[in-house]
């Protein structure tokens, strides 16, 4: 076979493989790794709520979409189906934290031991502040100290 044709074929083959790999990567792009991300802020639940609720726009600007580690007293634990939400600080002025589904599966005993009144640190993605739920954090992990 002619050497030039061979080289062209090899190039075309490489091109196709790279193209497919890119398509595969785009459609199978991994989700953001909240657990592996260093928290942008470490906050105490009561102060966190006070600061955020005082100026929601400034709060969104500072905390929205950021990974935040929040420490506070548990006031409510709600289990619904496979999901678990833990509310810190206060029922009405709460930090409402939905636990990550994987961490619920993998740390069942640790989570079962949690009870109202305990102080706990949770790390998760801050989604914003809601008039009913308070500050909402999703994909939360328990931070052991």
């Amino acid at each position: 076979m002619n050497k030039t044709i061979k080289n062209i074929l090899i190039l075309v083959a490489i091109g196709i493989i790279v193209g497919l790999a890119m398509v595969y990567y785009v459609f199978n792009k991994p989700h953001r790794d909240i657990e592996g991300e260093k928290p942008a802020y470490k906050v105490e639940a009561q102060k966190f709520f006070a600061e955020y609720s005082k100026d929601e726009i400034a709060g969104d600007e500072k905390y929205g979409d950021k990974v935040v580690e929040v420490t506070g007293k548990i006031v409510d634990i709600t289990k619904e189906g496979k999901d678990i939400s833990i509310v810190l600080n206060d029922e009405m002025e709460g930090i409402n934290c939905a636990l990550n589904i994987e961490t619920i599966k993998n740390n069942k005993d640790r989570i079962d031991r949690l009870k109202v009144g305990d102080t706990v640190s949770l790390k998760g993605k801050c989604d914003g502040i809601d008039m009913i739920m308070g500050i909402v954090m999703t994909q939360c992990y328990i931070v052991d100290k």
Partner: protein
Amino acid sequence: MKNIIIIAVFFCGFITQIEAQKYITKNGKIEIFSETPLFVIDGVNKKVASILNAANGNVVASTLIRSFRFEEALVEEHFNENYLEPHKYPKAIFKGKIIDFDKVNLKKDGTYNIKIAGKLTIHGQTRDIEEPGKIIIKNGKISAITQFNVSLKEYKVKIEKNYKKAIKDNILLKIHFDYKFYK
């Protein structure tokens, strides 16, 4: 005089009873779905709050756009950065009422077809909606479900040129609330 006091006490009791007829959830669910041959948008938000006032059928519901999770990370990214823009409009809110709520008997198990009407705010745009739904009473517990389409255009959600064919204007929303008695 005594009778007046008795009547007054009776009415006070009556009023507080009405005020106490509120139901709440902080773990409601919205699923969003859209499919074209090119693209499946399949997301869920399990942090949806709602309060139902059983005295008059008034309902409020709210959620944060960032709480939506999608099967594909890429779709999640686009949803947040290019379409719903939660950095500008972090919340979606519904305020309205259940029409014909008086035909729902909270003490009797059953499924009641109802209509929900009110103002839905998404992406900073408020629209009047009226959609069918169901109230399900089981063992004294109230659940509410509804599903309807929202038009992206109506809420001024812009689709990039390249995705015009890949994304439909109508997105299906499935909403589910399991209410609890509000202390």
